[in-house]
């Protein structure tokens, strides 16, 4: 897996909490840095795609592994 600068474990949280917590976590890192997000909400896949598209942050990676979802979000 690519490297990242900060990590957010949103496991067990449902819509819209993973997005809201990711937004907060992004506020704590610098432009160009990467946030790694772990989620269990199946809606998160589409939601993080939509979040990235609308906020201009780059969704570098989105994958499912063993019932969990992993995202790499690069702050614009």
């Amino acid at each position, binding site marked *: 897996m690519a490297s990242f600068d900060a990590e957010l474990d949103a496991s067990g949280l*449902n819509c*819209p909490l993973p997005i*809201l917590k990711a*937004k907060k976590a992004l506020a704590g890192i610098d432009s160009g840095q990467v946030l790694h997000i772990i989620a269990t*909400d199946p809606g998160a896949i589409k939601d993080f795609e939509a979040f990235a598209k609308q*906020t201009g942050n780059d969704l570098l990676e989105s994958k499912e592994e063993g019932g969990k979802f992993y995202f790499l979000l690069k702050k614009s």
Partner: protein
Amino acid sequence: MSDEKKLAIIATKGSLDWAYPPFILASTAAALGYETQIFFTFYGLQLLKKNLDLKVTSVGNPAMPMPMPVPVLMQTLPGMQGMMTSMMKKKMKSKGVASVDELRELCMEAEVKMIACQMTVDLFDMPTNEFIDGIEYGGAATFFEFAGESDICLYI
């Protein structure tokens, strides 16, 4: 910023289930960069109380999923509303759904502007010290000042 997208919501309902849509949409919109306002009117004003005591009822709502079928007449018995409310809250917690308090707090943090309908406050003699801090009071014209320039306007 005038190029910022805007979302205007009117929240008119004060039950536990109906408390979710305005706060979920407002907090998410704020996270997406929308400037967001919620105008609370009539029963929606319950959502601005410091001590939220919101309840859910299956009476008049045949679509509410129930763990077992309960005849309508039974649903009206004393204690049933309280029981259903605590069951709903338990279910939400177990599924990782945020509490209304938590979502409202996230909205406040994200600078979602909340406006209480002055007319309703007067109509029901609602003590303003029971409302959370940081809200404003206004009327229909106040709402339109923002809603008229909004990209999305929802009546909930």
